[in-house]
């Protein structure tokens, strides 16, 4: 019983502690300290500013716009991902459907393809001259350069890319549900909607919550579609928080201000995560 390990254990534990300290803990501390400084890495500048950056963050219109955009984006994308996921997974679960695995493979395809490359394809799809979308819809919309539609375009791309993941996860959830419930319901003459409303949905609730929480967390951090498609524009209509941080840090090299921004985002996501854990904890103990 030499379960205490010895050299191997010590080396691994040291490496783990060192790695996560250097690449996660120290950065968070540095970002916090940096947020009180005028910090420009190009000029080698690091000067104490007090609360200046923080005041600038909360007084900045762009910050509030970006937070509003981010919350809207995350809420809408999550909503459609969950709805499409539920609808299509239930359709696929039906015994009337053949070739289930073919559909599964197809729906999951967008999720596994590389985001940057796929975003370029969508850039063309949205293009008013050569694009596919206007042709199919019979519309004449300048998707990426009209402030009413740019966010819609980013949402379309995101939902298209991510719904398949929800379908697969929900389908996995459905297969793990007890068959007897459905047989009993069928004997009682419950229709499809009643079965979904009173059996499937309550049993799937933990899975739904899982998707909602992980989706919200990842959508609060979305920036790649914005970088490739709109760069925040037109105007400020597609500025998302993560893109704003990137823009302040690596276009303007305003590291101090960007640090304050990213610390706010960090706290926001931490609070959201803690809240949703609490809610999901309550649901599971119901």
């Amino acid at each position, binding site marked *: *019983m030499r*379960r*205490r*390990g010895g050299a*191997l*254990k010590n080396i*691994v534990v040291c*490496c*783990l502690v060192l*790695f*996560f300290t*250097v*690449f996660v803990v120290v*950065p*968070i501390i*540095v*970002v916090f300290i*940096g947020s009180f400084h005028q910090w420009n*890495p190009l000029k080698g500048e690091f000067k104490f500013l007090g609360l200046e950056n923080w005041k600038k963050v909360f007084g900045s219109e762009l910050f509030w716009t970006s937070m509003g955009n981010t919350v809207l984006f995350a809420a809408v994308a999550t909503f459609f991902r969950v709805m499409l996921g539920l*609808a*299509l997974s239930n359709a696929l679960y039906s015994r*009337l*459907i053949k070739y289930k695995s073919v*559909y*599964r*493979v*197809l*729906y*999951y*395809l967008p999720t*596994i*393809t*590389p985001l*940057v*490359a796929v975003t*370029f*394809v969508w850039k*063309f*799809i949205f293009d008013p001259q*050569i694009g*596919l979308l206007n042709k199919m819809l019979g519309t004449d919309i300048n998707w990426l350069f009209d402030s009413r539609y740019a966010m819609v375009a980013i949402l379309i791309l995101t939902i*298209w890319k991510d719904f398949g*993941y929800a379908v697969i*996860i929900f389908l996995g959830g459905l297969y793990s549900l007890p068959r007897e419930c459905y047989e009993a319901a069928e004997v009682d003459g419950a229709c499809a909607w009643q079965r979904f409303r009173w059996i499937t949905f309550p049993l799937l609730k933990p899975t739904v919550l*899982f998707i909602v929480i*992980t989706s919200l*967390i*990842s959508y*609060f*951090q979305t920036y790649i579609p914005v970088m490739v498609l709109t760069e925040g524009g037109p105007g400020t209509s597609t500025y998302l928080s*993560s893109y704003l*941080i*990137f823009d302040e*840090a690596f276009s303007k090299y305003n*590291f101090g201000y960007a*640090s304050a921004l*990213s610390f706010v985002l*960090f706290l926001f*996501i*931490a609070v959201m995560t803690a809240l949703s854990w609490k809610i999901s904890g309550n649901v599971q103990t119901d």
Partner: protein
Amino acid sequence: MQNAGKMHREKPAALVLNLVLIFFSILTILPFVWMVCSSFKTNAEISSLTQTFFPQSLNFDNYIQVLERFEFLKYFMNSLIYALVITAITIYTSAISGFVLAKYQFRGRRLLFAFILLTMMVPGVVTIIPRYTMMQTLGWLDTYKALVLPSMFTAFGIFLMRQACMSIPDEMLDAARIDGAGEARVFHGIVFPQLHNSVVSIAIFQFLWAWDDYLWPYLVIRTEDKQLLSVALNLFSGRYSTDYAGLFAATAIAIVPVIVFYLIFQKRFIEGVSASAVKG
């Protein structure tokens, strides 16, 4: 009689369900089909008002040009090597970390594991500024060291491997110890070979994530020759923004191999998704 009635109701229902499912299948693959079709068109054909969905003729000029003019093959190889190296490293570090966290008693073990899981919640953009400064201070900008080092351990992989190691019985390890095997032998000789399912899951997802890496290489790598494929796409589109045909071919080069890889291993992918659910 009752059965016949049921059949009667089921036929239209099956039709509607199938139509919905087929509709969404078309939506998912249409962008890829369009991309591949367009990559065979000429620029004149693409911008023409009478553009057809399928190309007039199958010519590979766009691909040849993209590879000659922009050396996409080099970026492709850079990405491939980078993704393979990251994948190999994380498989090993995840396995050995998962093993230690699952099979040894030591003070702070649960705390360490909870701490590792918590790091998954930290947004990437938050740590990127200090990480960049760190690499700058060390003088590591524009090296692959800066690219690989921050990705050497992944919380997701450690989580998966810890689960897998927990299911290996202690008696098996003790038997090897009685035979005189050291702890390193126990891990490499007995534990690691049993982790193949988790190795495959981690390999698939880690490879795709590395293939998809964008912001970090974009910031850290300065020399164009060392750049990765996803960043190169952006460079290409910035430089030849009107060469639609070229960019279609370029995106196809980045996407189609991934799709082929996916179709070959699709069963493994779908099985692995529930495992990847941890990362979200």
